[in-house]
């Protein structure tokens, strides 16, 4: 699998998105997925989304990404490695 290009997004780009990034790095490593993760705010993420494969954000922000080509994955619990791992498996790995 080619290197996966991922955006982690949150309202400000400095809190939740960085937590998502930290958690994703661990989750991808465990699942043996080679991924490059960029974190930013939702506005920037939306304008750049078409250059990326996947966008991760808090579930309450999913609506912001209507119309983008990238797979948008909303997370209920940003601290749950279990939720992240399951969603990566279901929406990224199983889709390949």
């Amino acid at each position, binding site marked *: 699998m080619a290197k996966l290009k991922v955006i982690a997004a949150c309202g400000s*780009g400095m*809190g*939740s998105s960085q937590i998502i990034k930290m*958690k994703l790095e661990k989750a991808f490593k465990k699942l043996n997925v080679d991924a490059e993760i960029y974190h930013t705010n939702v506005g920037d993420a939306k304008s750049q989304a078409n250059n990326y494969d996947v966008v991760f954000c808090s579930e*309450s922000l999913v609506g912001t990404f209507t119309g983008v080509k990238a797979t948008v994955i909303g997370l209920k*619990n940003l*601290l749950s490695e279990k939720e992240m791992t399951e969603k990566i498996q279901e929406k990224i790995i199983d889709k390949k």
Partner: protein
Amino acid sequence: MFKELVEKKRYSFHEGFNDWRDAVRAACQPLLDDGTITPIYPDEIIKKVEELGPYIVIAPNICIPHAQEGVGVNDTAMCFMKTEKPVHFDPNDPEKDARIFVVLASTNNNIHLENLSALSETLSDEAIVAKVLEAKTPEDLLKVEE
């Protein structure tokens, strides 16, 4: 993480708040008192949540009020607050209720990243979260990580 928060007096305990905006302001109060942030910062946090929804509630019971770097922030810090009663961010979604608040402020990205990493590490541990929910005093907080 809690040792430093207690030492720097960056914590508060409250019964509850009817309006999440008041909860965000109260959570920020110790940082306003010690000059880490200015009143613009809580305003910015509230504005973003009104615009985008409660994205600062990152997990059940856990809220991390924060806004963009550089607006109303003089230093890098975290500040803790706990409420006895859940604060409702979305009247239709109990999963967006919060009782543990950790305000994030940043001017230095390296320290901020260390803070975030400690925060996410600590609050990913369900046993620790359970103890934090029980805490009523700074002394209780110090015992959480023992």
